[in-house]
């Protein structure tokens, strides 16, 4: 009990210190670096909260991909003209905002402490219905069966985000390859990582996807790892980014959400409710959706990090 409490306390203090550092630091680069460390500690917090699926997602997406994105953003902003120094917030306003935010924290903290005990939970209902899905991982069952609609819509949101990022293409860049062209790195540590890691990473991603049905893991975590395995050689200039008007690319992006919707509509026809799986078919259909969706989401995540095409210099 006491060691566990001490561990939680240390972790909590670390998270808060890093978060404060992120907000207080003057330099954007330092902020982004602290943010990655914060994300990793947060993943540990999720492990302590007995949410291994969330921990994996936080580590891979919240810390990993977001970190790459923010660091890359900081570097590119430094390369552009000095950002016009907008006036800093005045001291009086800063204090007022600080008081307001502190009040919000106190209110939320009070709400957390005043939640009913025992907290109402759907865990018993999930446990009771888990068998009908043939899945062993309750989180996957929620994502793919009980609340499959959210997962479906979320995959559409990710696709729409790619459209949004592409819509920000500067004049003259349309139809080019996604993101900045990366200089080729032939040797050195990055080239080593870019060559050695992907085969290993792909195996790990497939493993995460496969065990996701019964153990912590699943499509989002696997897709994030796959995206990283694409981004690594891309950053080293070894794997070119795709042209955004490539037909195959757009088909892969759309395949996952489209298959999910079509299977859902099939359920409406066969079983009388959208996203209802015919008895005995739940697991194979879910696996099929997960595999195709992993590919779509992996490509989408990588494209989101790469950013819109740039016009040729």
């Amino acid at each position: 009990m006491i060691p566990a409490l001490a561990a939680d306390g240390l972790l909590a203090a670390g998270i808060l210190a890093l978060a404060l550092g992120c907000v207080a630091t003057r330099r954007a680069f330092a902020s982004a670096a602290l943010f990655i460390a914060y994300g990793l500690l947060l993943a540990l917090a999720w492990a302590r909260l007995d949410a291994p699926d969330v921990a994996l997602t936080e580590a891979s997406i919240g810390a990993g991909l977001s970190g790459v994105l923010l660091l890359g953003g900081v570097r590119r902003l430094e390369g552009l003209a000095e950002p016009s120094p907008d006036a800093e917030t005045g001291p009086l306003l800063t204090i007022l905002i600080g008081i307001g935010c502190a009040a919000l924290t106190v209110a939320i903290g009070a709400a957390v402490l005043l939640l009913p005990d025992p907290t109402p939970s759907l865990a018993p209902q999930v446990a009771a219905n888990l068998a009908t899905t043939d899945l062993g991982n309750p989180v996957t069952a929620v994502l793919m069966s009980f609340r499959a609609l959210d997962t479906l819509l979320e995959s559409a949101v990710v696709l729409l985000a790619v459209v949004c990022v592409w819509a920000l293409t500067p004049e003259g860049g349309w139809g080019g390859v996604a993101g900045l062209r990366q200089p080729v790195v032939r040797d050195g540590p990055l080239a080593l990582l870019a060559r050695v890691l992907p085969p290993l990473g792909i195996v790990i991603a497939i493993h995460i996807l496969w065990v996701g049905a019964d153990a912590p893991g699943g499509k989002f975590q696997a897709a994030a790892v796959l995206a990283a395995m694409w981004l690594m050689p891309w950053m080293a200039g070894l794997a070119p980014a795709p042209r955004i008007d490539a037909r195959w690319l757009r088909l892969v992006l759309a395949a996952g959400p489209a298959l999910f919707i079509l299977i859902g509509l099939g359920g409406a026809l066969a079983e009388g409710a959208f996203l209802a799986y015919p008895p005995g078919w739940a697991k194979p259909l879910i696996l099929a959706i997960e595999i195709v969706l992993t590919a779509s989401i992996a490509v989408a995540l990588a494209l989101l990090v790469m950013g819109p095409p740039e016009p040729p210099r």
Partner: protein
Amino acid sequence: MTGTIFGLVGAALIGIGLFGMLVRRDALLRILSFNLLGGGVFLVFGAVARRGAGAGFGGDPVPQAIILTGIVVAFAATTLAVALVLRLAAAKDRA
């Protein structure tokens, strides 16, 4: 207990993130603060999930699945914001 501790951490992160979003002027730092705020919200939800442990699960799987979805959506929003900031900076550069 663990749930309550991290729920309170979440509440603190919400305050810190909101403060950063409102006070900092640098757009990237605002985006970063938005992510801190989001992390805090997820932790509060995580505290709810932990307190709902039962039926052999270490936490209520329904909020856990919701948090997972939320993290992915928040990431997509972050990429969008970063792309917009970079595009705006490049437009300023050219002007």
